[in-house]
């Protein structure tokens, strides 16, 4: 029984492959159309993914500056330093005492600058804290937490640019999603229409087959496989296009990056991406042909 089932499926696949070989050019054309359609959101995804990877590198610099109160005792300053070093969210702590800060500040000033005539040091002691987590929410929670500490005059998180970047990336991700949904819809229509046309050209065969005892599944099966194969072929075509695009981009961007002393290049997780791309395409192909076959068979049934 099991073997019989398997045989039925193999038979359907062989039939479809034979049909596709017979109309090779149109099969390749359909696959490349699907490939181009799939390739667009995939490329956008790779771009967004890489930008967000790049910002993670930049965010290594994300920090909170803690300016301490002027009248704070030396012991309290040390205690705060300890507290910061023990804090789980903190990766690095740098202390700048007010005298050093003042010296540095004044050395950078022209002698006739009004600030250089100040008698007293107006600057506070400060801790510059690098954080482990760099997303805007956790940075701002930490900033609020530290602001509440005793002896802290001002905790300043320079996070607004990160926020903006994050918002932008979020927008990019949403654009990828929207594009993917739109194109999935387009793919469904393309594949469903292709399958519908094939059913129409094989109308006689379907009618005769039904008359001599073919089950609906038997008739449906080759078309479902055809849809899946179109999807799979399109997915592979998309991968090929994407690969070509990324390789050529990396080649031209490498020179530019070299000028900036960076080794930036587009990074792609091929295994995951291929699986998702081809898998989605196959599923869309199956769904599209399932709808197409269902509708067309119902129509044939009415006519016959």
């Amino acid at each position: 029984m099991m073997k019989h089932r398997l045989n039925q499926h193999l038979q359907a696949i062989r039939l479809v492959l034979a049909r596709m070989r017979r109309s090779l050019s149109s099969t390749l054309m359909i696959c490349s159309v699907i490939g181009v359609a799939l390739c667009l959101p995939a490329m956008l995804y790779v771009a967004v993914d890489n930008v967000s990877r790049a910002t993670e590198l930049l965010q290594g610099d994300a920090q909170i500056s803690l300016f301490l109160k002027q009248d704070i005792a030396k012991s309290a300053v040390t205690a705060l330093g300890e507290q910061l070093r023990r804090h789980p969210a903190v990766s690095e702590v740098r202390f700048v005492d007010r005298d050093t800060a003042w010296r540095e500040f004044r050395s950078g000033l022209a002698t006739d600058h009004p600030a250089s005539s100040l008698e007293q040091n107006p600057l506070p002691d400060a801790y510059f804290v690098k954080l482990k987590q760099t997303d805007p929410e956790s940075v701002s929670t930490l900033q609020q937490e530290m602001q509440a500490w005793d002896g802290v005059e001002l905790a300043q998180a320079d996070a607004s640019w990160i926020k903006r970047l994050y918002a932008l990336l979020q927008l990019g991700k949403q654009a990828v999603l929207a594009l993917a949904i739109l194109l999935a819809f387009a793919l469904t229509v393309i594949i469903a229409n292709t399958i519908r046309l094939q059913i129409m050209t094989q109308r006689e065969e379907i009618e005769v087959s039904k008359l001599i005892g073919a089950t609906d599944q038997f008739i449906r099966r080759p078309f479902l496989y055809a849809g899946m194969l179109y999807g799979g072929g399109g997915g592979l075509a998309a991968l090929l296009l994407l690969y070509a695009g990324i390789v050529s981009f990396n080649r031209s961007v490498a020179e530019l990056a070299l000028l900036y002393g960076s080794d930036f290049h587009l990074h792609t997780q091929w295994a995951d991406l291929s699986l998702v791309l081809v898998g989605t395409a196959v599923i869309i192909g199956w769904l599209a042909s399932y709808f197409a076959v269902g509708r067309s068979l119902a129509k044939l049934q009415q006519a016959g």
Partner: protein
Amino acid sequence: MIRFDQVRKRYPGSDEILRGVSFEIAEGELVLLTGQSGAGKSTLLKLMAAIERPTSGTVLIGNQNISKLRPAVIPYLRRKFGLVFQDHKLLYDRNCFENVALPLYINGVTGSDAAKRIRAALDKVGLLNKEKAMPITLSGGEQQRLAIARAVVSRPSILIADEPTGNLDESYAGEIMALFNAFQQVGVTVIVATHDVNTISQSPHRALHLSQGLLEVQITEFA
């Protein structure tokens, strides 16, 4: 094997085509179904092959009442039949071999096993040398024989032919009837619808005569 009991059939918007038909066909019998065109022969054959359902009355095939079958099991019932259609219904986009292969593929028979049976069927109807030919290149008689090969390739227990000699010369018609006789000899139940007077008069078999939707006379002749 096949039993009709007070079978009536009416298509929507038409007169009654069959008006209470009852008969029985035994296993291994060859029966002619005669009557003028429009008498309801094709409809009766369609009821037999579960292509149509009766408006009222019962059609029993084996012991199955076809009116009560779920649509899902009808394909399996149809595989018991070999059907030869009035208009052949050959597929003109493939060669003779592939035409005959269709019922086997539907039954899940493929490969060398299928090839053997296809060649045997083609051989039986005298078309073994034409397996690569396209049906359109065959003569009318050859096309009809190809249709018969397709009908018998899956070794059905019942063979139903609708006007198989319809447009053929007398000699061709004789050949075809000889083929049906040969199938009956090996135990196949054969039902042949025809309006061809020659076929009827030369046949030693029972004939059911349909006239205006009624089974008129049951002629029984013995050779």
